[in-house]
């Protein structure tokens, strides 16, 4: 093979390798989505435990952002996933441990829970409406009319949890509610408190990144 042909082959091979590498990197970036967590089936329906925190764990790429977590009731492990899988047309129970401090709503309409089966229990007490400045976050699935305000922990409490993972001994509110899952499909949920600190209107950053303040409900 002549020197020129050899050079051409080497160039082509290097180019192909570089392109494949870049392609892989970009591909992995594109499909990098949080995993999915299945709700635990119980006799009364499916159950999920979630938590909302002031900042994500230290090793997270966005460790200054607020975030939702999934809490494993048995092991107490915290998982940073925001896609929940539930069976269709069943009663789904959510229990959310809310560790963050209040921010307040942008539209006070969301201070009244709606879309549930039965009452919303905040620290065990049935609640019809909360103070609009109280919520730290909400959990809402607009497509099925579900919206639950999550009141913030007392900001003057001594044992506030600053960063995930948190323990139940730290200041928090427990919010539980039940709703009936819809027909099979992919639905999305979000928080309606503008809790993206530092972003204008509070709606940037974690509010617009799946895995933090928004995710999917996969109904199978």
């Amino acid at each position, binding site marked *: 093979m002549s020197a020129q042909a050899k050079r051409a082959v080497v160039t082509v091979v290097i180019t192909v390798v570089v392109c494949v590498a870049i392609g892989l990197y970009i591909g992995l970036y594109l499909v990098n*989505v949080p995993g999915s967590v299945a709700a635990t089936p119980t006799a009364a329906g499916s159950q999920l435990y979630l938590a909302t925190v002031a900042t994500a764990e230290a090793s997270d790429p966005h460790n200054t952002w607020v975030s939702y977590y999934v809490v494993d009731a048995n092991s107490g492990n915290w998982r940073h996933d925001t896609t929940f899988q539930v069976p269709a047309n069943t009663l789904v129970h959510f229990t959310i441990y809310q560790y963050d401090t209040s921010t307040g709503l942008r539209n006070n309409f969301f201070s009244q829970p709606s879309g549930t089966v039965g009452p919303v229990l905040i620290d065990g007490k049935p609640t019809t409406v909360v103070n609009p400045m109280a919520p730290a976050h909400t959990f809402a699935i607009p497509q099925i009319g579900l919206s639950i305000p999550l009141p913030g922990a007392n900001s003057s409490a001594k044992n506030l949890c600053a960063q995930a993972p948190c323990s139940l001994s730290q200041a928090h509110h427990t919010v539980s509610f039940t709703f009936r899952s819809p027909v099979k499909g992919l639905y999305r949920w979000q928080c309606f408190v503008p809790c993206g600190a530092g972003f204008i209107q509070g709606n940037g950053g974690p509010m617009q990144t799946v895995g933090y303040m928004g995710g999917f409900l996969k109904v199978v």
Partner: protein
Amino acid sequence: MSAIAVSPGAPRTGGRQLLGFNMLTGIILGIAGWFIGYSAIGKHIHGAGVAYYSTEAGQNDIAIMLGYLLGVVGFLVGVGFGNYPFRRMLGRPPSLAEHEAEEEGLFRYFTLSTDHKVVAKQYMIGIGFFFAVGGLNAMLIRTELLQPNVHVFGANQYLTLVGMHGSMMMGIMTSGILGPFANWLVPLMIGTRRMAFPRIEAFTFWLLMAGSVILITTIFFGGFQTGWTGYQPLGDQGTAGYDAYIGFFACVGLSMTLFGFNLIATIITMRAPGMTWSRLPIFVWATLSTAVLMMLAAPMLIAALLMGAMDRTVQTAFYVAGAGGSSYLFQNLFWFFGHPEVYILALPGMGIVLELLPVFARKPLWGYRLAVAGMLGVAFLSFFVWQHHLFVSGIDADLRPFYMLSTELISLPTGFIFLCAMGTLWRGRIRFTVPMLFCLAWVFNFLWGGISGVFNSDVPSDTTHGSFFVMAHFHYTIMGGLVFAFFAGIYYWVPKMYGLKLNERLGKIHFWVMFIAFNSTFAPLFALGFEGMPRRVVTYAANFQGLNDWVSVSAYVLGLSMLVFLFNVVWSLVFKREPAEVNPWHSKSAEWQLPTPVPLHDFDRIPVFDEDPYPYGVEPVPAGAPAVAPAGGAA
């Protein structure tokens, strides 16, 4: 001619080439500039009001923008743009040529060259590369839209893909025809050896490349969620990826402004004797109209984005309604640029088509003055229509009939172009070469683009704004128009630019697959828009899935046709390298009367023009006779 000393540098070979000012040095200095701007300076800028927000949000927009700025400066210095100003500051006399020595071979293309032919080819490869990136993004977008309830990509990443596709295409293709073709042809067509400002010519290219790299870095900063139109205040909310969007369009805007300015100066002042305004080839008229638009509209974009950058970094409130600003301000500023921008995209395509039709119909351009009036009319009117992008935005209702009228009026000069194209074919002797096929397809595609534009301009019908109907409209005009004309130009001029033939059969396969796939991809989008599918959505109503799948598959086939083209280019220009005839199309245009390859100095003697630019129908040319090229003779 002025008494500027032309001093080509001594040709350097081998490793010594890498040590000088070239693309590699540029990349190294660019990266260094980034770190200086981002880490050394940016991270230390902490105003009391700024640091709190950037700490909470976890991003430092000031640092990023400074990093981009110094990165671009470093890159340009590395390529060599600082050398001449530095020498002049030291008192050296003015000079012209940096690396015009032919012996340097391929190396010329990786550094600052003042030879307009080299810059044109740099543009061709650079634009081709980023066009491919944008096209790949489109393939990925269509992959996501195959199913409404299964998401292939993350929802954030999908929005960034959409924004990158739009931005890449709009930013790159504004120079898509002018970059490769105007740089190469305008001096030759008007009978001069260079552009008015060769270093600026090279600057616009390298700046555009730097900007495109900035756009790609958006994925390292979380992408941007605004689409290519970058609407505020959504952009203000965005993660740091939006800074990359600003950086990209700042570079593109500056590149466009300078490019337009250079073209205008060249065309006005450097025409050879006898090249009067009424003898100017129609492609040069199209270039001139486009250049005026570039120069006047692009600065508006820079201003609009600069204010957006200030909103993001130092918390001004230009576009924030709650603090005294207005979201309308951004929309108006952006579209004041944005509408001339789309005519910047359309006019060069018209210029190429009207330039090529006479060659392949063997007749003069029909209605030359009407065509010129059409180009200038489109350029002029394009500044008076931009509010049609805001018809349903809640602008004062009294404004809408006026903008409806002005937008409808713009179809008049566009109609002139169609009439001239049709008239050129009348009683012609049409030869269906590959460039001609693309030109004829342009007429077909732009017809549908234009008619759907009439629908959009009529306010009662404009409730399809923001839907796939508008998408279909502008893809028909921009892709069906500009991109088809781009390929016509490539197949037509590559034999002269490179002296090599492109395979004709592959060209025809490319054309037919592309034409059919293009129409199959974008025609259903008109229906989707009317049925109620908005733009930039990651999910849609279930009953649209059939149409979306059809569109996605057609888009894949369209991508495949591009691969055919790519294969043709690589095979013909790198491996087969079959020399082309001097004038394979028997064109009577000035650039075809030069030998192949065109010498460094273009003309041995500056020509004197004394003829109509389209002297067809005067005498028949027997087949096989080479086009005689008297050195420096009349066109």
